[in-house]
């Protein structure tokens, strides 16, 4: 048997679900804060990598992470999208990354849509290198905001 609900009932249902939405929001913040409480207390993070932008002397710009310095070269990790020009070949236990047949570095991680490449850049190859600092907002913040919006809306409708 179908139950008819008046407009007034709908309004009261919406009013009742507001506290539920508030609880959902409070729960989200509590979970987020508990994750933050586990952040390391040392001066620097444990895993190497500093956001960097490198302009190459022969053109082009790399956005990635500066992880090290070896043999007078900067070691930069950056992601390259998978394409027919990109090939990863395993040699002596190391994954070598080739772009259009030219070896450019080693593969750190092979993901669904891209490959994280570790590349050594000599000073002669670098026109300008800049460390990115105070980068507090990213796509993660925007995605988290959208997910929270949808989650609270979903809970409101329950």
């Amino acid at each position: 048997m179908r139950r008819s609900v008046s407009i007034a009932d709908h309004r009261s249902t919406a009013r009742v679900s507001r506290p539920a939405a508030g609880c959902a929001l409070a729960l989200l913040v509590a979970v987020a804060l508990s994750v933050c409480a586990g952040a390391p207390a040392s001066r620097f993070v444990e895993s190497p990598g500093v956001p960097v932008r490198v302009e190459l002397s022969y053109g082009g710009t790399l956005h990635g992470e500066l992880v090290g310095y070896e043999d007078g070269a900067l070691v930069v990790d950056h992601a390259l999208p998978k394409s027919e020009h990109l090939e990863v070949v395993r040699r002596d236990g190391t994954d070598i990354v080739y772009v259009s047949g030219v070896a450019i570095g080693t593969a750190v991680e092979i993901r669904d849509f891209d490959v994280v490449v570790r590349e050594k850049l000599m000073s002669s190859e670098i026109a300008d290198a800049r460390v990115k600092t105070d980068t507090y907002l990213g796509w993660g913040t925007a995605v988290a905001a959208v997910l929270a919006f949808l989650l609270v809306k979903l809970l409101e409708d329950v």
Partner: protein
Amino acid sequence: MSPKLVVCACAVGAALLASGCARDVPIAELSGSGAVVGVVVTTVDGEEVRGTLESITPRGMVVVADYVEGGGVEIVGAGQSISVLVEGTPVPGEVVGVERPEVARVARVRRSFAAGAIEEATFYRSAGEASLATILSLVVGPSVGGLLAVIF
């Protein structure tokens, strides 16, 4: 102006403010820029130096290294004549300050390493900056999204 518009304007303003903080600092001019990059340098002699990166140039690297008193590290002298000894051997470089935490004194020494003297180095992001970014992503993002959902 309606309260909804005020909330939206505040959220957008906060996002713009936080994203406006981002800066690009040349790696040759990190000193005094406010950018804090941790570094661990291993020299060809096998010495391991931990500290804060000041610059990288084709000629080499300048690091402000931290030396914690005790365990073979001595901080001797005072004022302009202060120096740091490791196993009795003076540490090359300029002492730029001595901090006095509760446990032991920490001397900060500015050291230059020629490119050829560096076996390898690794770089680390400031924990404070990384945790603040995490807080903003994990707290501010969901809070703003959830708040907007409650309001609208």
